């Protein structure tokens, strides 16, 4: 949380991350809610649908988290290696981290959305 008195650098640091994760989260919430509702209508079994959609969300979330930490872990190495070998790939640690933060948010959103709809049903 960025308090009003914080130095602007910290605020923008937090804001950009919240925006990435949050945009994913919103899409995920929507997907999870709709997926849960739709799947239940299709199969007629709320419990099984909750398990399936929630698990898919966990899969995306876990994958994103793995990718995020993996990019930081191996990012410098990969970039340096590509520079070293002179291959002109535009892989960057930053891009990878950002994409993974989105995915992570999306997965989290699916899990939350599913649980909310499941509780309502």
């Amino acid at each position, binding site marked *: 949380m960025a308090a009003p008195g914080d130095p602007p650098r910290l605020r923008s640091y937090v804001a950009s991350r919240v925006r990435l994760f949050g945009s994913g989260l919103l899409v995920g919430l929507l997907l999870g809610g709709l997926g849960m509702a739709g799947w239940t209508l299709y199969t007629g079994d709320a419990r099984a649908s*909750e*398990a*399936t959609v*929630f*698990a*898919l969300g*966990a*899969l995306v*979330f*876990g*994958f*994103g*988290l*793995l*990718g*995020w*930490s*993996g990019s*930081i*872990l*191996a990012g*410098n*190495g*990969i*970039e*340096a*290696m590509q520079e*070293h*070998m002179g291959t002109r790939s535009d892989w960057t640690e930053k891009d990878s981290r950002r994409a993974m933060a989105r995915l992570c948010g999306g*997965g989290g959103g699916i*899990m939350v959305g*599913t*649980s909310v709809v*499941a*509780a309502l049903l």
Partner: protein
Amino acid sequence: MNWTQSLFRLVEPVVPPRFVVKRLLLLVPVLFGVASVVFAILHLAPGDPAIVIAGQRASTEQLEQIRQELGLRRPLWEQYLSFLWDAARFDFGQSYSISRGNSVRSVIADRLPITLELAIYGQAAGILLGIPLGIISAVKQDSLTDHVTRIGALTGISVPIFWSGPLLILLFSTYLDVFPTSGRIDSTLFLPDTWTLFGRELPLTGMITVDTVLLGNTEAFLSAAHHLFLPALVIGVYSTALISRMMRSSMLEVIRQDYIRTARAKGQGAKITLMKHGFRNALIPVVTVIGIQFGTLLGGAVLTETVFGINGMGLTIVTAIGVSDYPVVQGTVLTFALLFTLVNLVVDVTYSYLDPRIQQ
């Protein structure tokens, strides 16, 4: 650089501790991520855990009771959070069927060292043989040695482990009777559970070639090495083939670069030039790839263990998937992921030693 300088370079802490600590901290989200994926596997996988435990003929009430006990009737988010908590303590409960009644943790504790031992010997053989072979092949490009090495390496990656393994067993065990077909040590030998160092009892590692040395039991060591030879050979040939191919192409890349030509033009001998500039630079990409290749090696260990009937992690995961023993599947997958990440961490540190530009 004279030799004292090189010696200092080996002794001083070339990799700053912060670099290592940051990477160790990142293990937390990595495992958290893997745990989420593993949780998903259980809930996406077909089949009902209750049926796996109680069998097809169990009554509806029995099944319902087991589901309650396993917590499968709670809301998913509750199950997810408690699973993460358990995973953080490496507690996956008890095995459903392959080692019924035993905790997954103890199953893995028994079997992980077996696979580690195999993978370490395989990787060591690959590095010790593959790197020199790759260099020779690159330096003597298009010579007879190069052709033989290349075709050998290509054959090495084309021949599947589950064919070369059985053929070696047939030839050396069944027909010539010089190596045992399976097992880890002669069945007449028994090893104690602990060893003594300065009067203190310590637990053994579970890696049989290490344990027999710790115990000072030469006969047992020879027997263990004798048993391990064929499986390690199979996996070592595979890893040698992979690494020599990478080393060759990386070395060729470096040789083609200008500064080697310049150094040569300045009148330094070809061999010295190569060792001084070429080797270190060519090694950098190979080291990174060795980390990724370790995963391929673990895949190879799965096949090798199946062929040689070695009861390690590989055979365990295959059996567990086959009979839907999900707690064991989850535990083994998480362990493999941890192992893979740790190896890549070590590789990363080695790599930053070779190429200090990336330590920031």
